[in-house]
């Protein structure tokens, strides 16, 4: 009979009798359940907010109808009409909350300057828009490896300390095979626990068992495999249980807590980003200052980007809607460079986080999972661009009415543009290859260390 299979069978029997193993896997399942529940609640709130948006819009339109219908000055109506936009909600977002906790699910926009409206509801500082959330992704990326380390760090050190190592080696011959059987079995147990949590989550949260969900699970298992390699290396390299425990826990703290924080600080220092709210304020200041400038100056700036309207009569009165909205568009354009830099630097940060995160497997895993769940920074910025595009539609609809300075017909009320949420085109998935490479390298090093193992 194959010795490796034999080892697996006996290790399984011992593990089944281990109270610590049951307790740790139970705790992992409970953490996964709690994380799934928390993710589902967050998503439920967002779904409710999104579901309520059309009703709020209709109610708003009824109010506007009572106030302005059957007619109403187009600029006036546009000023008071808020249009809901909502991000696409992928089912996997319940597993990987990502940025969904920090940015709003629904952004209401008016015909005013778009840059002044995009970040009004941002809840977070972009400096922290990077990592972290207690969701299923965190459980897979950080907690499951901790359980695996707790179960595997002493795979050989406990044998040495209990005096069994000499007899084991005399019987089995190969410490590397023994190590592979032990850590492999523990990896399988923790991976199965994760799979149970994932499947239960899919069923409970109605997540379809499609390629995206399987890819998400695959990334989590690749991360666990990387940690299995690390656990084997620790078990083969250390001489005492206390030593292997200290190295395992220390390694986890450094790579899961400290390193991502340092990477975040480093990347943030390299790519400084103003808060989105600063853009809002700047845009507002720009538009407010236009009240004190000659109307013609604002209009001529507007005509540079909108030559089609340059033939319209000059604004002579104290107020005209076409001048008002031109003022906002000019203000938008005045912060265009900052808005682009904001996006570009956030994307740079995202790119560098992804590039450097292989140093910290947990952070890398969370990035990869968030990407697959459409809840990462790329998806957020893509949504903001969808809102910009929709705002362009609003301008295209209302500008002719405002420049004609006419009232709306009842048909035009019903024909206001509506935002249609669409899935963001999937960005390149963050590959699990670095995790698999880490697993392979640490596994090879662990085998080498095990082969050099002495009982002295």
């Amino acid at each position, binding site marked *: *009979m194959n*010795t490796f299979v*034999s*080892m697996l*069978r*006996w290790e399984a*029997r*011992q593990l089944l*009798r*281990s109270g610590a193993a049951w307790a740790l896997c139970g705790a992992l399942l409970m953490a996964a359940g709690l994380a799934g529940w928390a993710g589902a609640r967050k998503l439920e709130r967002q779904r409710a907010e999104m579901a309520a948006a059309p009703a709020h819009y209709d109610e708003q339109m009824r109010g506007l109808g009572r106030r302005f219908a059957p007619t109403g000055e187009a600029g006036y109506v546009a000023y008071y009409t808020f249009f809901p936009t909502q991000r696409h909600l992928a089912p996997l977002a319940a597993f990987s909350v990502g940025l969904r906790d920090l940015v709003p699910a629904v952004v209401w926009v008016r015909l005013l300057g778009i840059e002044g409206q995009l970040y009004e509801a941002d809840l977070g500082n972009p400096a922290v828009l990077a990592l972290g959330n207690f969701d299923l992704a965190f459980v897979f990326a950080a907690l499951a490896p901790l359980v695996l380390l707790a179960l595997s760090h002493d795979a050989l050190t406990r044998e040495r300390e*209990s*005096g*069994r190592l*000499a*007899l*084991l*080696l*005399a*019987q*089995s*011959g*190969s410490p590397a095979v*023994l190590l592979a059987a032990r850590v492999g079995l523990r990896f399988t147990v923790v991976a199965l626990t994760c799979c149970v949590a994932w499947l239960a989550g899919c069923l409970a949260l109605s997540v379809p068992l499609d390629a995206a969900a399987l890819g998400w699970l695959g990334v989590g298992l690749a991360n666990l495999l990387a940690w299995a390699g690390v656990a084997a290396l620790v078990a083969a390299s250390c001489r005492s249980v206390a030593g292997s425990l200290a190295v395992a826990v220390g390694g986890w703290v450094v790579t899961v807590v400290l390193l991502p924080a340092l990477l975040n600080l480093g990347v943030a220092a390299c790519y400084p980003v103003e808060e989105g709210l600063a853009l809002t304020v700047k845009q507002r200041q720009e538009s407010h200052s236009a009240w004190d400038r000659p109307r013609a100056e604002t209009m001529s700036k507007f005509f540079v980007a909108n030559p089609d309207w340059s033939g319209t009569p000059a604004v002579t009165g104290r107020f005209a809607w076409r001048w008002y909205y031109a003022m906002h568009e000019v203000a938008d354009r005045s912060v265009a460079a900052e808005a682009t830099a904001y996006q570009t630097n956030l994307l740079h940060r995202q790119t560098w986080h992804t590039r450097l995160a292989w140093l910290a497997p947990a952070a890398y895993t969370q990035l990869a999972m968030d990407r697959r769940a459409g809840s990462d920074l790329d998806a957020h910025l893509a949504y903001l661009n969808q809102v910009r595009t929709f705002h362009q539609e609003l301008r295209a609809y209302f500008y002719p009415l405002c420049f004609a300075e006419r009232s709306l017909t009842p048909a035009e009320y019903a024909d206001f543009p509506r935002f249609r949420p669409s899935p963001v085109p999937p960005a390149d998935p963050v590959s699990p290859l670095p995790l698999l490479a880490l697993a392979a390298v640490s596994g090879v090093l662990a085998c080498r260390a095990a082969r050099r193992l*002495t*009982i*002295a």
Partner: protein
Amino acid sequence: MLRVTNLTKRFAGTLAVDDVSFSVGPGELLALLGPNGAGKTTTINCLLGFLTPDAGTAEVDGLNCARESAAARRLLAYIPEQVNLYPALTGAENLAYFSELAGHRHSGQRLRDWLSEVGLPADAHDRRVAGYSKGMRQKVGIAIALAKQARALLLDEPTSGLDPAAARDFSQQLTRLRGAGVAILMATHDLYRARDVASHIAIMQHGRMVQQLAPTEANHQELEARYLETINA
């Protein structure tokens, strides 16, 4: 079967084994006597391939124990001075586990026969080892070595912790194994048992093999006298 040639091993400048040579053929039992620190266990560890000699060679059936340790270990069975087992498994399960590690899968009855043979009470076979005494664990260790059915046996104080009856039974086992052609190297402090079961006796002191004799050359009292004379010299 077992051949040690000019074996030398140092630990941080201390000479643990100094130019030791001996051989043990099939059916022979060499008893290594000597005080603590004489180099007996280090010699056994070199034969097991756990330690690499600084000079000389240790061989099992022509296999170099340092370079071909895995292959050499397959030909050896080993009983350490203190047998530590898996406390969550029963005596029979421990025996089955260690046997399967060595590539042997025995029936439950055969495993129990071995345990009974080494004197472990039948009612202890299916009890978890956590409740075993040191002597009971030692008996399971002996059963593990027997079940491996190896061609050579390395024993490091094998009767440590055994009651007199079990130690006597163990001596009879060794005699049977010798009859079956197994080569045995036994490190021990038990001069009387060494004289009764060994085909050769060697006394080690400060890493050197200082005296070799046949058991027929001395009775128990004479052996004790020669041993004390040697180590006090």
